[in-house]
């Protein structure tokens, strides 16, 4: 599988603080990738490095086989919508489109105007008076009309109301269907990712905790509950991601590619949210107490 974004021991330091350190990951082509993680995990820094707004302090990053922002051609291949969808408050919607046309040789004016029309935006309205959702849509339109191969979206829907969020994701998905563009979108709203993404990367403190096709991840994780027992007694093929115990009962989230045959377990499928929370929780405990004894919850 070709990678659209490949980072190796990537690090970025501001003064003495590392915003991202020793990050190694690979994002496959042709996917809609959800990049999730708690605040401060380095998501924004990673995306800014990917689009070349930042330069790495250490390590390396390759995007579509090139160095980010290494010349106009490379810049043209990557579309970016920054957090809070910055636009020029004093310029009208129409002028933003002209700005996009002037600044991008690959600009598709038809796509741009078609989108604006479909969204019902008034071309003569100033961006400063647009709603958050409309501004996000305008920023997305600017990013897709330059016909990129890769779209990087930094928390595109975090600040939007549910309806605007839905509309934004509809637009995004239509673009994916039409243009076949690869997408990486960071978010901490797992519900949005469940429908739109087909690939998930959980990033906690610069480290990839989990990465893979969402379908495969959901199929290979199970929630087991049953009489209390030591997780150490599980088959070697079952990796315990999360465990909790009461005096009598044990609940586990395990990863395995095999069927779970033990009849004492009640097995339930996991949701994407369960999965993300479990991996984020595991990463937070700096020394994971996996298989090291029972943690008793009352």
């Amino acid at each position: 599988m070709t990678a659209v974004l490949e980072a190796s021991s990537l690090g970025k330091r501001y003064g003495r603080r590392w915003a991202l350190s020793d990050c190694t990951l690979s994002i496959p082509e042709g996917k809609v990738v959800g990049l999730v993680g708690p605040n401060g995990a380095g998501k924004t820094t990673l995306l800014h490095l990917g689009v070349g707004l930042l330069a790495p302090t250490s390590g390396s990053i390759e995007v579509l086989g090139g160095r980010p922002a290494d010349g106009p051609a490379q810049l043209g291949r990557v579309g970016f919508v920054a957090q809070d969808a910055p636009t020029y408050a004093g310029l009208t919607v129409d002028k933003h489109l002209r700005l996009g046309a002037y600044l991008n040789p690959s600009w598709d004016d038809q796509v741009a105007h078609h989108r604006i029309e479909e969204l019902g935006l008034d071309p003569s309205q100033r961006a400063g008076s647009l709603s958050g959702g409309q501004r996000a849509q305008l920023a997305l339109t600017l990013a897709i009309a330059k016909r990129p191969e890769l779209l990087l979206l930094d928390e595109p829907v975090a600040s939007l109301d549910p309806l605007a969020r839905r509309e934004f994701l509809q637009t995004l998905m239509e673009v994916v269907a039409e243009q076949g563009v690869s997408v990486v979108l960071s978010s901490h709203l797992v519900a949005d990712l469940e429908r739109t993404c087909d690939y998930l990367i959980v990033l906690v403190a610069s480290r990839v905790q989990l990465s893979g096709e969402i379908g495969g991840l959901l199929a290979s994780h199970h929630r087991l509950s049953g009489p209390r027992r030591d997780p150490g007694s599980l088959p070697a093929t079952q990796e315990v991601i999360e465990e909790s115990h009461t005096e009598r009962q044990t609940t586990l989230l395990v990863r395995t590619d095999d069927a779970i045959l033990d009849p004492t377990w009640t097995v339930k499928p996991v949701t994407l949210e369960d999965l993300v929370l479990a991996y984020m929780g595991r990463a937070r405990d700096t020394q994971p107490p996996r298989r090291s004894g029972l943690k008793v919850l009352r």
Partner: protein
Amino acid sequence: MIRSTWMQFRAQTVVATGGLLVVAVVLAITGPHLVHLYDANVSNCVARDDCSTATSSFLQNDHALQVGLNVLAVVLPGIIGILWGAPLVARELETGTYRLAWTQSVTRTRWLAVKLGVVGVASLVVAGLFSLMVTWWFSPIDRVNMTVFTTFDQRNIVAVGYAAFAFALGATAGVFIRRTVPAIAATLVALVTIRLLDFFYVQPHLITPVRHSYSLALGTTISGYGGSNGAQASLFPGTPSLPNAWILSTDIVDKAGHSLTASVVNDLCPQLATVLGGPGPGAPQIQGGHVAAIGPAPAGANQVLQACVSKVGATYHELVSYQPPGHYWPLQWAELALYLGVALALAGTCAWWVRHRLS
């Protein structure tokens, strides 16, 4: 990229053009009248022998406009630096739109170069046109005043250099500070400081000044006798009449170049102190060759002073250092080159910083 910069910059261009037009209209209305008055009353005053009356009444014309234009000429570069320079990059960094601008298919170095170029050239054009109009309007007045160097900063080509410098300074402050209002404040402080330092320490010496010796004479090279704040009384050097020259220093020195001291004066002319009451607070001041003592001047003071000047003048002379009228244009060019050079260096700094430190 140039078109996009123009598009974003259009509102400011309109305002600037409007401002220039207003100035142009006002000057076009009042200017020819000034020329007419000059031709009618001043140019032939020598023949009528009433030049001092003619010139002083001529200089009273449009007085408020004269002051206003001169002030505007001084502050215009500052306005350009504040309104066009400082926000140029700072506003993008402050509002986050740099994340939009720098992710289009234009490298940020080019983005900055074009922005600096387009808005910078606009600054030069505005300052240049304004200076052209002001210089034309003031030409009869400047001809009468005969002090071209007092308005050196407000006429001709140096204005272009100041505008370029102020613009680049503002842009650089914006790039470093990343916030518009603090960048504006920093631009103002830096601009005023640098211009003052330049005026006192650099500008006078951009071209080596002329030095000339004059023999001492009361009323011209010696303006009087006196002392202040308890200092011992001595002879004051006078300012020789050099039309359109910029006099940098006047000093009374002997052949070896030593300055005249109060003790030398008192040794040579001991009766001066007696006649004029001696040094100290409330000591008489002598200006323009006349004794201006507290209370009525003692009779014969002028003769005593005259004698003293002759005696001192045997070994001492006045050394005047100045920029003659012929240095006006070389100095304009030198000053312009200096400021354009610094502006280019600042633009380079901006580019380097944006490329390497804002990433």
